[in-house]
């Protein structure tokens, strides 16, 4: 394993900022994995750090295929994580809205540029992603739909679901989309939670990435069998929004299988505790996403069903 500095920058009063890459094997630049780009992506950094641990051990045991190179960048934004902020500490900009970056531009454009300069040379790209909704997902692989179909290799992860998502305007400045424009086969892996570590979901996720590396021919080791992935498109989802506001008393979590008419959550009056509203499943379904805060506002996505 080689530890490389990908980006450095001085700060007015903090220690110098560095982004590190951990490189395994040597040869063709085959897979790059990116962990936390936002300060609250603690689960994503945890999964990445475990990958570094596992790949270090595998390299020591000669289990990395000759002629391939794997890069893991566990964190691109510890300046925010250390002080409890999601976005860049100075101007609150999001590194993952700055791709492909600009090396003479603003600070986060420069960070994105340095990252992308390193990342765009790889055949496969894996980003441990988070979403701007507050809630938990079933761990899954997400692909931004472009002209090239990369679903086949997404099945290497052995995750239960592959979500092929139509691009929205903001996707065009994110890492995943730009990777694909530069002909890297790019996958966003959702590890369940964001700001808190969910150990079972984290372990499931790093095992899925190890399985991908094995299936793609990068590792010479045994891996646990995965799922036969189901491919989902936008039309497969049904969102249930809250008709009331108050305490969100959730009865079901992401990953639960529910029957038509089953109670998913109650919304309680924040003053007298009475039930203001109830959310029932309109069909037999699996919960893909669940709001997981204790408070909820009206018109907020409470559940997403498949």
């Amino acid at each position: 394993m080689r530890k490389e500095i990908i980006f450095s920058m001085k700060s007015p009063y903090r220690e110098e900022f560095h982004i590190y890459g951990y490189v395994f094997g040597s040869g063709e630049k085959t897979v790059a994995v990116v962990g936390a780009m936002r300060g609250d992506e603690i689960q994503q950094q945890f999964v990445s750090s475990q990958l570094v641990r596992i790949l270090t051990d595998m390299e020591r045991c000669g289990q990395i295929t000759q002629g391939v190179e794997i890069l893991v960048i566990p964190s691109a934004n510890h300046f925010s994580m250390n002080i409890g902020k999601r976005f860049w500490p100075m101007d609150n900009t999001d590194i993952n809205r700055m791709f492909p970056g600009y090396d003479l531009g603003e600070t986060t454009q420069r960070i994105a540029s340095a990252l992308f300069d390193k990342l765009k040379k790889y055949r496969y790209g894996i980003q441990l992603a988070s979403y701007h909704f507050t809630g938990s997902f079933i761990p899954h692989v997400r692909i931004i739909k472009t002209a090239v179909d990369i679903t086949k290799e997404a099945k290497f992860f052995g995750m239960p679901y592959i979500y092929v998502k139509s691009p929205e305007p903001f996707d065009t400045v994110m890492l995943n989309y730009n990777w694909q424009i530069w002909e890297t086969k790019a996958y966003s892996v959702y590890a369940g939670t964001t700001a808190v570590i969910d150990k079972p979901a984290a372990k499931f996720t790093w095992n899925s990435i190890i399985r991908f590396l094995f299936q793609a021919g990068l590792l010479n080791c045994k891996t646990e069998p995965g799922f036969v992935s189901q491919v989902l498109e936008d039309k497969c989802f049904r969102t249930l929004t809250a008709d009331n506001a108050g305490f969100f008393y959730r009865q079901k979590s992401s990953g639960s299988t529910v029957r038509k008419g089953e109670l998913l959550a109650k919304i309680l009056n924040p003053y007298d505790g009475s039930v203001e509203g109830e959310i029932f499943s309109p069909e037999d379904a699996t919960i893909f996403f669940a709001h997981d805060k204790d408070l909820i506002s009206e018109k907020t996505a409470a559940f997403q069903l498949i």
Partner: protein
Amino acid sequence: MIKTVFSASLPIDEKLIIQKNQIQGAFPGKRLCIVTGTHGDELEGQYVCFLLSEFLNKNTDKICGTIDIYPAVNPLGIDSITRGMPGFDLDMNRIFPGAKDTSLSDYAAYSIVEDIKTADYAVDIHASNIFLREIPQARINVDSASALTGLAEMLNIDLIWIHPAATVLESTLAHTLNSLGVKTIVIETGVGMRITPVYGQRLFNGIINLMHKTGMWLGKAPENISKPIIAATDAVSFVNAVDSGIFLPEKEYGVMLKKGDKIGQIVKPLSGEILSEVFSPDDGLLMTIRAYPVVYEGSLLARVIHNS
């Protein structure tokens, strides 16, 4: 008449309410929307909305058409000195056109677009953020330049900056409205978290002038409307910090510079060092100057429109 554009209950005993003031003229005509407060730390538009509401309410007999004034697209942000949408840590001007069944923020964005989309014109007033001071200017996407430049020239501003079609702008309110056929001009002026009265008054005159030129205002036309410089992106030089430290400006925005004129310096208070001096890269107009002193490498310090 005050109307509610969007309303949703927050968890405890409060609603998020987005409102507009609809001023109906005595005569039929076009519909103009004045929108501001998408970023909660940009307050220059507050003064413009006040001036317009006060003036137009008293002069409906001279108005042909309808003026809708939306002073706070992001009311929680304005009330809590938060640039994005509080509770979502989200830049509201990156989620348009919004959607109905995803989140409260997306639903709010969707409702705003639904309310404006039948208008003929919109002016989306932004201040600069807290980091920069800007001369009054319109920002126009190159794809819309032929349709919007003439309209922007009416607004009593100093500059029309025609920039390339960056994909990120597709998620803004202005891009959404322009793609729906509402001729929408984005104004940037002044600085974040402050009101610059002279710029507010100028923009007020500019909007009345626009109403006059488009047949919506039967009263006297404002005088001394400024003729703006029209600049393409390659006419604008950016000056970014090469060091992290404290920036001390030495020039005011809006002044003419010679190439090599000193704009300021970046210093290190701990040791008393001057880390770097900042010079103008061209002869031209200083359209932007850094207002917030703390800088990282890459922070924007100034923009200069060169004379050519």
